[in-house]
């Protein structure tokens, strides 16, 4: 797999340098500068919202640092969790004296590292809460929803938590709205082709020329089935019916994200979205603020995911609040 890169060892640092040069509202912080923070000082009294994760998923994670979204973000090597230190750096950067919410995907390393970083933060009198994205319905049953991986739906939690923090919500309120969004967000993906870690000898996984894997994770974690490719509408129907099987009883409005995993072009996302809109309409759901594009990727992986965030009035209001980061602007 060809890549437009220099030495793979410098991939993350050069990428972060480019990101901050292009978006002067972001800056690298910490000893090894593996956390991204906003270039404006943290507002005192505002709850901080941070995230973190491996590189290779842009716009996730660091791309969502911005007003009304994340205050800071720790970043690891490609598909590797951020270090404990980077997590600490992000928490420190987001500390405005009112506590910091750590909002990240449910992955072993990330969890441990934010946990340790939070213990260190506590020693410096920074209060933290952790909320984990667990939206990937392919990764565990509804009964074991807490074991699910966090994937594209995490950005709805960023948006809601970021908006409430901006509006002056306290730490518990921000954490609890983030948890509510996580609890009401579901994602399912389908992978068509692999990506490759810079410098690796080969692709992360292989998949036959005429096959797709339903439910595969954003690092190539195994999904639910691998079969011959089907028409887009049939795939969407299967995805939507799985997502709606977990529809909360009170939900009549829904935010939608049709996300490219990397190389799947806008054209195909719109073909998918057309059917998504038809199916949600048939299910009596009203779509609010659809997002279509590469929001959470795995470098050049082919495929797409569909995320539904089942709204209530509070979440809908928070998703509508003004926000501004390099990859997502509202209002």
């Amino acid at each position: 797999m060809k890549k437009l890169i220099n030495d793979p060892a410098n991939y993350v640092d050069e990428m972060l340098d480019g990101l901050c040069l292009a978006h002067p509202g972001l800056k690298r912080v910490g000893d090894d500068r593996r956390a991204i923070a906003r270039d404006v000082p943290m507002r005192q009294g505002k709850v901080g919202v941070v995230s973190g994760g491996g590189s290779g998923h842009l716009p996730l994670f660091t791309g969502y640092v911005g007003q009304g979204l994340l205050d800071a973000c720790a970043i690891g090597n490609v598909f590797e969790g951020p270090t404990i230190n980077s997590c600490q750096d992000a928490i420190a950067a987001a500390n405005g004296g009112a506590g910091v919410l750590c909002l990240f995907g449910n992955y072993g390393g990330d969890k441990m590292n934010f946990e340790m970083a939070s213990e260190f933060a506590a020693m410096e009198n920074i209060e933290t809460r952790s909320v984990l994205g667990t939206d990937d319905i392919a990764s565990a049953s509804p009964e074991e929803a807490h074991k699910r991986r966090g994937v594209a739906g995490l950005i709805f939690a960023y948006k809601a938590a970021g908006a409430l923090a901006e509006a002056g919500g306290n730490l518990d309120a921000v954490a609890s709205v983030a948890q509510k969004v996580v609890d009401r967000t579901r994602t399912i993906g389908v992978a068509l082709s692999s990506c490759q870690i810079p410098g690796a000898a080969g692709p992360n996984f292989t998949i036959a020329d005429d096959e797709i894997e339903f439910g595969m994770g954003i690092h190539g974690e195994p999904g639910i089935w691998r079969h011959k490719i089907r028409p887009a509408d049939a795939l969407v129907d299967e995805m939507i019916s799985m997502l709606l099987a977990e529809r909360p009883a009170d939900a009549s409005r829904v935010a939608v994200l049709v996300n490219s995993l990397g190389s799947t072009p806008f054209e195909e996302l719109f073909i998918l979205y057309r059917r998504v809109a038809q199916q949600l309409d048939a299910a009596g759901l009203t779509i609010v603020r659809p997002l279509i594009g590469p929001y959470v990727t795995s470098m050049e992986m082919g495929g797409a995911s569909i995320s539904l965030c089942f709204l209530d009035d509070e979440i809908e209001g928070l998703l509508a609040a003004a926000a501004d980061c390099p990859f997502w602007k509202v209002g």
Partner: protein
Amino acid sequence: MAIDVNTLADAIARANQSMTSLTDVLNAADAKLGDGDTGTMLARLIGAFASVDVRNAPDLGAGFMALAKAGAASTGSSLGTLIITAMMTAGKLTAGQKDMDWSRLGDTIAAIRDAAMARGKAELGAKTIIDGLDALARAVDGKDDPTAIAVAARNAMDQVLAEFRQRPSAMGRARMFAEKSVGLDDPGMLGLAEIIRAVIADHGATPLA
């Protein structure tokens, strides 16, 4: 004779030396079902340990803490964080102490095992590095002679690898393929075993069975 900063520094130097050949072996073990980076990650982490000036640490506890600190800046992987947890645990247990009796090694490893279980939310029997730590703690418990400890440690690692090889993984990335993991070594446990083997190599001990 007891464990001091020099014992620690020597062990790290040997572990670091062993990574030259171990990196590929462990990557290959992880690549079977995981993402194939256990070796690379351990090499980076132990390399970071090796660049710490442990011999000049004020005491053994400070030496362990300095390692934990170096580790915290160099890895984001699950296994790495468990090893950092181990260093912090040992550091707390030996805080302010110039050295530690060999007889206390079993308890220290047991404490590390417990801390890693708490950190990793892992049970015993899940086929991870923690089962290796558990076997190790039990094997050296009550012993105070370094050579006897080395022999017991090496045998314990051989046995725990053999015992778990036929069992399915219940933690880490390999849990996704629980059945396929039967017959394979857990890369974290294998890494622990190989590093222990390297660290105690000059004790010339051979397996009992």
